[in-house]
């Protein structure tokens, strides 16, 4: 029995010695995490004169001794266009951290000199550089819905309350987002929510992306001059495939947005000054009639047949008076550059 015991004991000791951990320490180094910040590699750019119109991208590289929250700010010195790229790491990899020439929000970058700053959370160090844009990015990579450059599409249907005051709902050329034309939507309808809308047919039945991968992008213009505080845009997207776009020619609207059809909606409050590019993932749209058991809301981008962009505002008088403080104020929700993109928003393409 003693021999048995010794044998088993020896075996255990052998296993014990075999499997001792041999690493030096677990986890990241505390000395580095809590030590002084040090720059290991300086900030470098893969291109100082990018041609963004050719889809060129500028990669950034830098390395420091510990993981920190960093921020790269690119500022167009002529347009004041701005792009911020952030991260938490000890390495900025030019294959990962790239700029495509788009801003974080409008205005767009033009052919101009840009100042670049790399800053770090809780550190005083700032690294600076510059680049010159040889050709600016064109934002037409996607599936066009409308850019209004050739006027309002012939099959499009524009409707507005003609008895409102100062109703626009027409093409304009004074302040386009891109190109030379845009569509104005605004006016004054104190007694009702709806001011008007534009319905456009869409045919994208050859795309393979799912609703999670498709983004709808739309430029929206407003101003802060006597701003109506309850104005918004309602975007409806129809996947009705059995009904013609304009089945009833007498009702001033497309017939693809009935409550009995597979229609999705998105409400966009408009409360800013100037142009903004808004992007929405299609899967974030909500069903228009979610409780209708006869509609199969399966959201298939291939079936998208029409889009309605409606200008609405909270009524300030009459039976539906909800916002009396907005009485007499003009609504402005002008639009331009409506385009579908894949996998990311237009500015991140």
């Amino acid at each position, binding site marked *: 029995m003693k021999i048995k015991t010794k044998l088993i004991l020896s075996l255990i000791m052998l*296993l014990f010695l075999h499997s001792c951990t041999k690493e030096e320490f*677990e*986890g*990241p*180094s*505390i000395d580095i995490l809590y030590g002084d910040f040090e720059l290991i590699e300086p900030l470098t750019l893969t291109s100082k004169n990018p041609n963004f119109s050719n889809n060129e991208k500028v990669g950034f590289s830098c390395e420091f001794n510990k993981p920190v929250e960093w921020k790269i700010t690119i500022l167009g010195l002529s347009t004041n266009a701005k792009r911020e790229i952030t991260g938490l790491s000890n390495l900025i990899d030019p294959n990962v951290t790239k700029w495509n020439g788009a801003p974080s929000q409008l205005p767009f970058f033009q052919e101009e000199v840009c100042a670049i700053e790399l800053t770090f959370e809780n550190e005083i160090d700032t690294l600076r550089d510059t680049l010159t844009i040889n050709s600016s990015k064109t934002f037409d990579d996607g599936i066009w819905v409308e850019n209004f450059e050739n006027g309002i599409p012939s099959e499009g249907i524009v409707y507005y309350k003609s008895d409102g005051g100062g109703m626009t709902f027409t093409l304009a050329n004074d302040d386009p987002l891109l190109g030379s034309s845009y569509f104005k939507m605004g006016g004054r309808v104190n007694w009702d929510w709806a001011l008007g809308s534009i319905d456009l047919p869409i045919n994208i039945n050859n795309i393979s992306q799912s609703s999670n991968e498709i983004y709808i992008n739309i430029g929206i213009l407003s101003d802060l001059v006597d701003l109506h505080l309850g104005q918004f845009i309602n975007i409806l997207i129809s996947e009705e495939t059995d009904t013609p776009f304009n089945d009833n020619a007498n009702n001033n609207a497309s017939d693809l947005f009935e409550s009995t059809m597979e229609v999705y909606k998105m409400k966009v409050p408009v409360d800013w000054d100037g142009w903004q590019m808004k992007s929405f993932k299609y899967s974030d749209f909500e069903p228009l009639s979610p409780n209708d058991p006869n509609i199969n809301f399966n959201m298939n981008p291939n079936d998208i047949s029409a889009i309605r962009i409606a200008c609405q505002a909270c009524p300030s008088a009459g039976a539906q008076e909800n916002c009396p403080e907005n009485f007499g104020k003009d609504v402005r929700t002008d639009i331009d550059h409506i385009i579908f993109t894949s996998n990311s928003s237009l500015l991140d393409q």
Partner: protein
Amino acid sequence: MKRSLLILVNFFVVLLSDFNVHAQGNENIWFDGLSRSYFVRDAIDKSTINDTLSPHNRSNGYNLLDLNTHVNPIKDIEIMAQLRIRNSFGSFFGSGTEINVRQLRAKGVINDKIRFSVGDLFLKQTKFTLFNYDEELSGYENEMLKPYRDIIHYENFYTQNRWRLQGIQTDFSFKFDRYIRNLSFDFFVTRPSGSSQINETTYSSDLLLSGGSIFSEISRKLTFSANYINLYEVAPSGTNNISVRNPVQGISLLHHFGNEKYRFEQSLQSGFSKRYWLYSELENGISDSTSNETKGMYFELNNKLFMKDSTLTLTGGYRYVDPNFRSSGAQTKRIDYAYTNGKTIYPRYTNMSLVRPTSLFDLISDEKLYNQDLSSTLMPFNPIYSNILTYGDATPNRSGVFMKARLTNKNKKYLAKLNGGLFKEVIGQGTAEKRNFGLFKGAVKINFHKWLNLKNELSFSFSSESELTKRGGDAVSSIDLYTHQLSMFVNAELAKNFFVQASFKQFNANGNEFLTQRNNFGNITYFTSVQEIDQKDHLLSAGILYKFRENVYASLNYSWWGAKFSDQPDYKYNRLLLILSLEL
């Protein structure tokens, strides 16, 4: 699972109705269980806290009855169903009344040879494979706070350091007339958690735990056992193609000798663990792959001497647990610090509605802070309440010596307990420097009634528990944390079975530490520095207790409790507690 439970319930209801008539004649149905009436009234000490947002005081309580129905349809089979009826105070006519099936189990013996259990199982193996370790600060609990502890344990199914699991278990044994004396086997398969919906399109996988033990009495003085346990996910039962695997194997030898006065036991145990995540790529036609694989081992040598008259027990030994040793069944904690924001008593305080930090009293009294689910990764912990053996004896990255002693005299005039240990990390965390740990716990109970030959009990208990953590090195990574819990308790039996009791507890923590952050695969990703730990918790209680008989008592007491912090507002609260507990 719910559907299965319903089917089982219906099955047992039918069985019950069938056997009721039978039982009246043959006594094949018997009942036991527990009844409890619980009432608390909590109040803010306004002199300390500027809090006008919380009610000055609040009260709640409930009556509950857990009725265990045991049915023996035939001699070798027993079916047990625990039905809970719980009625919150202030509710009438069904509103606020809950009726639940709390436990269901069938057990029996097949052909007088193979035992089996199906349903709710309470499982335990060794301290390194499957073991439900006691919670923090509960080592030397005094009797005044025992009702709280009993409720926490009962409500969370903590029984004899076992995990409550649902599944099937069987065991059987053989006797031999040569080479070895006997050989026993025990196997089980359980499902700690089922597949559940995470979001619209994602479902988690079933988590299963299976294992087995072999136990053999090789001779009268030497026994051998081997244990195996595996926690694993069944990927096809969910939508994720990634599933955890955590097999642990262990063996142990127990040798003993002695004479009519003493007995000496030596045990030696060792084992291995492996944990990894399996990526199933069957749909893509690619072979499976693994990631985040860790392998570790443990080793413990334990020597125990005890006198057969029970006056002295002495234990000492050495333990090594590898930094990469991972055992879900043994390293899952009772207290879930990830959810300590959901405290029952005043979860927010001050006019800024701050989340109230956890205190000693919360750990003692709040059953909702406790966890019943096995975790495949190391759970977060609070170093001020336990920094040395955070995950019990299976705490990874520890090596060191330990000792325990229990001393009394034949008349039991006093009882003294000691518990100590000196441990060191096997490898450092975030630095090559290793933490050194010192654990010193002592408790003494003096039975004055035995010294003074009094008929009724008069006793005084005192305990002191300290933990010291130190790490050298440079100023950035060095650690010095000291925690201490002091406890005193007086128990005076004024009349037969009627006691007046008073208790005081104080907990201090001073120093600095680093909180470890881990990712979903249990790898350390960051160390959060906590430089100024300075916390002082207190709990003063006084009350009366009447024991009708063992496990049947009524207790009424009042507590003053609170905590002081260096970096956030202090707080103080009061509580009135009434419990009537009857074990049927």
